[in-house]
């Protein structure tokens, strides 16, 4: 094993992992607050990938040629519209089920996931879509065959992810809104009694989760350049794995889990076997759920009567 391949894979894994972390936030916050797995979250991310391509096409059409400005507009528009998607999904498919049977929200979420996939497929066609390469500069360290290269885009992905996570952590731990979120997460009924509009807080949780997924959507779409209506499934499951790995319900856990998953997946695919990298991620998910369901930073769940 050569050192430069290892470092290259670590960088790639870190990039992948920070994206998983951003998407995992949506799973972990929703699970923390209403105890359901938002199965449609991966498809919200998929929608944001389409929105990214659409905004880039539209803004380019209107003559915005400065790449930073174009990206800024794309990010803002994508976050805004994806958030509306997240809000509407919660309103239509989950809110009426608040006091329903245990399985109902999860089945509803699976239905919503099918709806979103088919809706995007009908609207945009089944074929692969893409975005033009906007940023192609590369840092290259080393010379000859032994080199490590970091694309500007990778640096942007990692730094944007870290900054978003820090902002989100501040929002949750320092602001008034964050305090209400945490109160609702700890005890929904008690928070309601103390004057917190818990329905609104739940909506806001979905909006925040969708916004983070939208950031991930923009970054991944720029990074890989192509996507289809089915990308939400695999990415969603991997992000969920990240959330469980870090400890579901815990924000730093989501980021940590994402990075661990990204690194290990990247190392597995380059040093063991590329074909089985998804098998590796799924096996990891199954094994964590069996042996350590509370994850690395989570608290064990106890069922009370």
């Amino acid at each position, binding site marked *: 094993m050569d050192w430069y391949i290892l470092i290259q894979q670590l960088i790639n894994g870190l990039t992948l992992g920070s994206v998983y972390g951003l998407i995992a936030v949506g799973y972990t916050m929703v699970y923390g607050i209403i105890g359901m797995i938002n199965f449609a979250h991966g498809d919200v991310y998929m929608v944001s990938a389409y*929105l990214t391509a659409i905004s880039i096409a539209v803004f380019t059409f209107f003559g915005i040629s400065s790449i930073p400005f174009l990206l800024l507009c794309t990010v803002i528009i994508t976050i805004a519209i994806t958030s*509306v998607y997240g809000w509407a999904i919660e309103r239509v498919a989950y809110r009426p089920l608040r006091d329903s049977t245990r399985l109902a*929200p999860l*089945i*509803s979420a699976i239905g919503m996931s*099918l*709806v979103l996939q088919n809706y995007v497929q009908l609207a945009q*066609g089944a074929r692969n879509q893409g975005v033009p390469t906007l940023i192609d500069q590369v840092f290259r360290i080393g010379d000859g065959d032994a080199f490590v290269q970091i694309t500007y885009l990778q640096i942007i992905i990692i730094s944007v992810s870290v900054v978003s996570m820090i902002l989100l952590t501040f929002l949750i731990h320092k602001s008034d809104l964050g305090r209400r979120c945490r109160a609702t997460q700890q005890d929904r009924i008690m928070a309601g009694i103390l004057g917190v509009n818990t329905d609104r807080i739940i909506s806001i949780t979905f909006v925040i989760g969708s916004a983070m997924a939208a950031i991930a959507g923009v970054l991944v779409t720029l990074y890989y350049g192509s996507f289809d209506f089915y990308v939400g499934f695999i990415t969603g499951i991997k992000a969920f794995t990240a959330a469980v790995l870090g400890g579901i319900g815990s924000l730093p856990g989501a980021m940590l889990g994402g990075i661990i998953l990204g690194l290990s997946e990247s190392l597995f695919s380059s040093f063991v076997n590329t074909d089985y990298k998804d098998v590796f991620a799924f096996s990891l998910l199954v094994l964590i759920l*069996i042996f350590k369901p509370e994850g690395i930073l989570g608290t064990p769940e106890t069922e009370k009567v």
Partner: protein
Amino acid sequence: MTSILPTNLSIRHLLLETLTAFAVAAVIFCPIVGIHLNGYDFDLGHLKLALGLALGIAITRLVLALFLNTGVGARLAQHIMDRRQAPVAVAPTTRRLWAHVFVVLVLIGAVAFPFMAKKYFITVLILALIYVLLGLGLNIVVGLAGLLDLGFVAFYAIGAYTLALGHQYLGWGFWQSLPAAAALAALFGCILGFPVLRMHGDYLAITTLGFGEIIRLVLTNWVDFTGGPNGVSAPKPTLFGIEFTRRARYGGTPFHEYFGGEYNSEALYIFTYLLLLITVCIVVYINHRLKRMPVGRAWEALREDEIACRSLGLNHVLVKLSAFTLGAGIGGVAGVFFAGYQGFVNPTSFTFFESALILAVVVLGGLGSTRGVIIAALALTILPEALRQFADFRVLAFGGAMVFMMIWRPRGIIRPVRPSFSTIEANHAG
């Protein structure tokens, strides 16, 4: 009860709500539906459609809100949305005779059907019956025991590949593979279920989903053993050495030579259909008996309140495991029929979408109801064939129906009906 619609009527409020609905729907539909990506470019071909959709949603919402504020509307809504019904209904025993007559009539119709219908209709019904079988298997796991299994397709795949690979490596025919597939799928169910069933309900769903994907990915990537994406051929079903192909392939005698007469290509399909029908009947009967046995009661009790059951001394792991294993076994049998009917299997038949489809059968049939599952499986396979021009909207409709069912009747349309014991006792006494 939380309602999607406003119930207090004030014109200003109503208009505001309608405008909000329009704005939200417009933001949702305009970019994705209205702006159609065309390479790196775009066109606005469907913008009118997007605005129309948004307008439609806003108007529907306005009309519904107005209707629900009338006396009739409010009562209707109350009636339709009433979720406070008992999970199980108790029926008087008097209707049972008619039910028997009905079942016999349906069975006669089902047996007579293939001899009158065209080959195409027989193949559609064969697929429908395979889904009935899958639905019945998953119904035990999800409907009765309340364990959400999102990887059910794995057991289906194990069954199908047992037939195909058993034939390729061990020279097994259909009849050796049938029990082997059931046993193997059940074994996998048991191995997966044992550690998994102790965990929280939602985690179980994700773990089974992961398992289903692992099986599919292994089948795709292990090219040396499974043939990978190219798949493997599977043997056709036979009857005591009588084969239904033009020439004997598995060392038996072809049907038309044995009985004398012309070769009929429909014979194989008719035979497969009848065999499936018998299997479905057996499974329905087993299901019917199990529901009345202690283990069936334990499944349903555990679904309703796990903590109460555990405090009453039920071994929850064993009870769940029995449901999981039995469901997996039935899935395996369905897989054998699928592979035998197609004559070929490859991993694309076993994606997560297939699991979601089987789940849709169980959910739309009303979790736990055998009748409902049979009707839903038939409807979900026959309707898309009948409505070919709307084929693109199939998944949209399934997904939407799943969401709607969970809001409207989370326990299913048809409530499970049990015979009332008091009536039976009264009859005995009288």
